[in-house]
Each structure stands twice: as structure tokens, then as C-alpha cells.
């Protein structure tokens, strides 16, 4: 079976050619299959966020090959990379990254605005997404009128609106208390089980990681351990 995400010897360096050159990823090779729920864990500074940015086509690796659905991301133009982010990947960030001036509904609709296809029923579709995360009644509220958990649910609705095959969640519960954190995790489980989404969860919480099918542990830019999570065990 073809891997959705296939990485070969990914190296990421910063400040290249300068005295303070820094190597964050030391040759990561990784395969994530379609429909898998994987977590990447590690201490802060271990390179997990950098890895996620590369997986999410937000950043470019310095060396190595990255194939997304079999396509070499390195060979993509800027516009193609934008399209990949728009269509294939749904992002959920630790700090939500909602536009402060836009209402929840408008925030959810943003990816549709940048999509290739003209969406006639954009509003209906956005409402559907908000309903899915239980936020339909707050559609008209701006982010500063929502709690952290509510913001993250809006962000998940936004991530889902273009029906991406991959969801990348970077510490999605990091800014939330454990109760709302679990609520958000439940949504991910639901998306995984009911819609078969590939989910990559980045966290430093072993507890959350253990809910996933596979735990990839990073340390100093290397994968030090890959272990099946509880979900798989069950």
C-alpha cells in the first residue's frame, strides 16, 4: 500500500553557511499510511514542529525527499504548494491561528475562498462544519468572544472544510485545559474513525500520544523510538 506521506532522509538546517549554522533534523525517514492516526512526540527543541512544518508544506527541507501522495513536493511550484495546503491538508495549530477580525463562520470559510473551485454553497458548507464540531450556535461570534476550546473547534471546522485527506495538528490541546483538551481529541478520533482521515498529531503529552495508533518519538532531530499506541493494542 502506498504511503500518503513518504519521507527519505529529511535534513533541515538553519543559518546555512553562517557560523551559527544549526541542524534541526538529522535525516528523518518516515512513512505514514492513508487513514493512520500517528503522533509525533518529543521534548521542545527536538524538531517535531519543524518536521510538521515540512509535512504541512509550510516549510522546505534542506535535503532529502518528501513525497505526498507519491508526488515530489520539492518539485512543486509556489502555487502548487498553496494548492496542496488548501486541498490536501487541514491544519490545527496550538494557538488556533484564527483571524481576529472575522467571525467564526468567516474563519471557517477562508480556505474555500482560496480554493480552485467556486463554491456556491460556501456558507451552508461552513455551517455544516461548525455543526460537526458543535459550534453552529457561535457562528456569528468573533474569536475573542470564544473560549480556547471553542476556538480550537472552530479551527478544526476550518481545517475540515475542503475535505482534506490529512489533518496536521500541532499541539492542538497545548493551550487548553485537560477537559477541553479531551473534547478536542474526541473530535479527532471521530474524524479518524468515521471519515478515515490521516491524522498526524504533534504533542509532548505521552497521555494523548498513547491514544493514537503509532507514536514516533523525536529527540535532537532523530527518530529514537516508534511504538504502537493503545488504540492499536485494543
Amino acid at each position: 500500500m502506498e504511503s500518503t506521506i513518504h519521507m527519505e532522509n529529511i535534513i533541515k538546517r538553519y543559518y546555512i553557511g553562517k557560523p551559527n549554522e544549526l541542524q534541526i533534523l538529522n535525516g528523518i525517514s518516515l512513512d505514514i499510511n492513508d487513514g493512520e492516526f500517528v503522533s509525533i512526540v518529543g521534548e521542545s527543541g527536538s524538531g517535531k514542529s519543524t518536521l510538521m512544518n515540512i509535512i504541512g508544506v509550510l516549510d522546505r527541507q534542506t535535503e532529502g525527499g518528501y513525497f505526498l501522495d507519491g508526488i515530489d513536493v520539492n518539485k512543486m511550484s509556489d502555487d502548487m504548494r498553496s494548492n496542496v495546503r488548501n486541498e490536501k491538508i487541514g491544519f490545527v495549530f496550538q494557538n488556533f491561528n484564527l483571524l481576529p477580525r472575522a467571525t467564526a463562520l468567516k474563519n471557517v470559510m477562508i480556505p474555500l475562498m482560496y480554493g480552485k473551485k467556486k463554491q456556491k454553497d460556501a456558507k451552508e458548507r461552513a455551517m455544516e462544519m461548525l455543526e460537526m464540531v458543535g459550534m453552529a450556535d457561535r457562528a456569528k461570534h468573533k474569536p475573542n468572544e470564544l473560549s480556547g476550546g471553542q476556538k480550537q473547534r472552530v479551527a478544526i471546522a476550518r481545517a475540515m472544510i475542503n475535505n482534506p485527506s490529512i489533518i496536521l495538528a500541532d499541539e492542538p490541546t497545548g493551550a487548553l485545559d485537560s477537559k477541553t483538551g479531551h473534547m478536542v481529541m474526541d473530535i479527532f478520533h471521530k474524524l479518524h474513525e468515521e471519515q478515515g482521515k490521516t491524522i498526524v498529531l504533534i504533542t509532548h503529552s505521552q497521555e494523548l500520544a498513547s491514544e493514537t495508533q503509532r507514536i514516533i518519538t523525536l529527540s535532537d532531530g532523530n527518530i529514537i523510538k516508534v511504538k504502537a499506541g493503545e488504540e492499536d493494542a485494543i
Partner: protein
Amino acid sequence: MLFENIKESLNSIRCNKMRSLLTMLGIIIGISAVITITTIGNSLRRTLSTTFNSLGANALYMYIMARYPESEEDYLNWEYPEMDKEDYVTDEDIEKIKELYPDAIEGIAVNNFLGAGKVSDSSDNYAKVAVQGCTKDYLKYMKVDIKLGRNITDADNKKCKVSCVVADKMASNYFKDENPIGKNIEIDMGDTGIFTFVIVGVYKYNPQMQGGSDEKNVPEKDRITPIYTSYNTVSKLNKEDNYGYENFTIILNPSSNIKDSSANVKLYFDEKYADNKDFQIESFDAASELEMIDNIINIVTIAISAIAAISLIVGGVGVMNIMLVSITERTKEIGIRMALGAKRKTIRVQFLIEAVIICLIGGLIGVTIGIVNGYLLGGIVKMAVQSAYEEYASYIIFNVQPSLTAINISLFFSMLTGVFFGYYPANKAAKMEVIDALRYE
């Protein structure tokens, strides 16, 4: 997408009202200055052309003038020559022009003065009048309206008849309810003599008429009204040699091509005087004069507008400055948008539209202020001119009229300013790396 962008930009402007207004200030000042100037210029041109037209755009004023010697030596021994019989323009010339160029002219307007005097009868009933001689076209040219009876005719002129046309005001004051037509009046002009005229017509009096007086401190009864008789009658009574006209106004046919007609008349007279060693003919024509003044006002308006438009550049730099600040401030937003799939060109277009909209709103505010300013200044100018030349107040019709062309050009240029000064910041936004923008705090 465009609509979305416009909505987005308006939203962003609304969120930063004060800053947006300050950004627009340069544009507002520039555009309002341009519009104020062009409004005044445009109004001035319109006023002049209506005033000129009411004074007779179809009039060609001509006068006979001596030929000056060309060399300086000759000039020292030169004396202004006496006019001989053949040096004058006569009614025959007018007839010839009418034959040569049918429909080119309506006639010739000339007037001369006999003097002022008093009409009185046995009781102490009297009226003060001033007697002028004129051709039949003169009254038409001066827009003198005959209410009763008839105008002065060519026959009156040829036979030096003592027929006259009096003012309705004079007629009602002096003759009361009697019909003045056919009545004889005796005018006592002191040293000049006593003259008798027969009234053949009554015209509608207008206080602005030449020869009349309408001073406020003079009692109604003592105000002088003009009496018109024929030109030849007056020169005969003045005991002048009447060979023809020395200065006169040719009335061109307004339904003909004024320029061609005017050129034809000039050509006729130039030929007539071509062989005349002592005299030549000069002309002054309102239409070409107006055209010249019009051009001058136009050039001045454009020049001042161009200077005012320099502030558009200053305004544009202001817009660029604020857009740069805005983009730095919204780096995170740009990052989020890019992460969610916005292409570089989408970001560029978004900020470009925002800059254009800021400039366009500034332009619209500027146009509004400019028009208001134009009306205010126009009102002040009108008041100033009318109080300075009270007697001409009714002639000066100062209609403030904003120039539509100037408004369109101004709005176009404010948009252009937006594009020009918005491009650099927008491009800067578009060139951001998505991950750097997203991480920006």
C-alpha cells in the same frame, strides 16, 4: 473573489478608522485642491462665455486707423492724417458685403450723440432725455425692445427724418395715459438749440442702457432716459460732414458660421483699404477674444491643478508608509492566509485592492470637499465682484459648475496613486515565506 477582496478591504479600513483617515489625508487635500481650482476655473470660463454671449458674441467691432510709418525717421516727421471722404465706411459697403456674402451679416450698428435736454409743456410737466442717433440694427444689437409703434428705419436715416423712439418710462411720465405715438416733442438742449421730434415708437426702458441714468439719489422724475433717432439726423443736427462711419459694429448673422462670416467681412475691408496709403481697418471680435481668454484660464487652471496634484505624490507616499506598517502588523494574518492556501498573487491583489480603495475613498472625500469649497469660494467671488461693480451686477452671472472631466481625472489618478504606491507594500506581503509569516509574533 474581487468582491470578497473589496469587502475585506473595507472591513480592514473600518477597523482602523483613524489611521485610514490620516492615511487618506494627503490624497484628500490633493484632490480637494484640484477640484476646488478646476471648479472655480470652469465656473469662470462659463461666466465669461455667457457674459460675452449676452454682450454679443456675433458682434465684430471695427475701427479705421491711420497707417503708422514703418521707419523711425519717417515717424518723427509724421502727423496723423486727416480723414477724407473716401476713407470712411459707408452704407454702400454694407450693401456690397450683403451682396458678396449673403447671410453673413445682419447689419451695422453705429450710434452718435446729440446731447441731453429737457422736454416740457406749458404746465410744469417735464422729462429729462438724452438724444442718440443710431442705425436700425443698433437698437436690435443693444436688445432694445420696441413695445409700441416702430423702430428707426433706413428711410429715417436716408432722409434725416426727425422721427424718434422714446422710453416707456418717459412716455408714461410725460404723456400719462395718452398715446404718445405721433406726438411732437420739443427738446430744449440749452446752447445746442431746441429740436422737435416726432415719436414713432416706444421701447422698454432698462436702467443699464447707455445714456440713461438711474442714480438712486435722483428723483424718479429727473432721471434721464435715452431717445433714439436716426444716425444721419443727429449728424445733420450736429452740422457734421457725414461721409460715413469711422468706428462701428458689424452684426454677424448668428445662424451663420460666425468665424467664416467674420473672416469674410474682414477680407472685404482689407481689400477696400489695401490701396489706401493713409488708413487701414482694425477689428476686434468678441468670439476670438473669448477663445483667447478661455485658453488662458484653461492653462492657468491646469497649471495650478498640476501643482496641487503634487500633494497626491505626498499622499501616495503616506499610503505606502501606512500600508507597510499595516503589512508588518498583519504578518501573522498573511501567514495564516497562506497556510490555508492563499497564493502569492492572491495576497498581492488583496493588499493592492486595499491601497486602491483607501486612495479611492480619499479621492471621493476630496472631490466632495473640493465641490463644497468651489461653491463657497464661488459665492465669495460672486459677492465680491457684484459689490465692486454694482451697476453690472445683473450682467455677471457667476454659476458655480464643477468640472466633470476634472472629477473623473482626479478619481482616476487617485486610483492610480493607490496602484503605484500600493504595489511595493503588496509585493512585500506576497513575497513573505509562509512559515516565517505564520511564526511572526
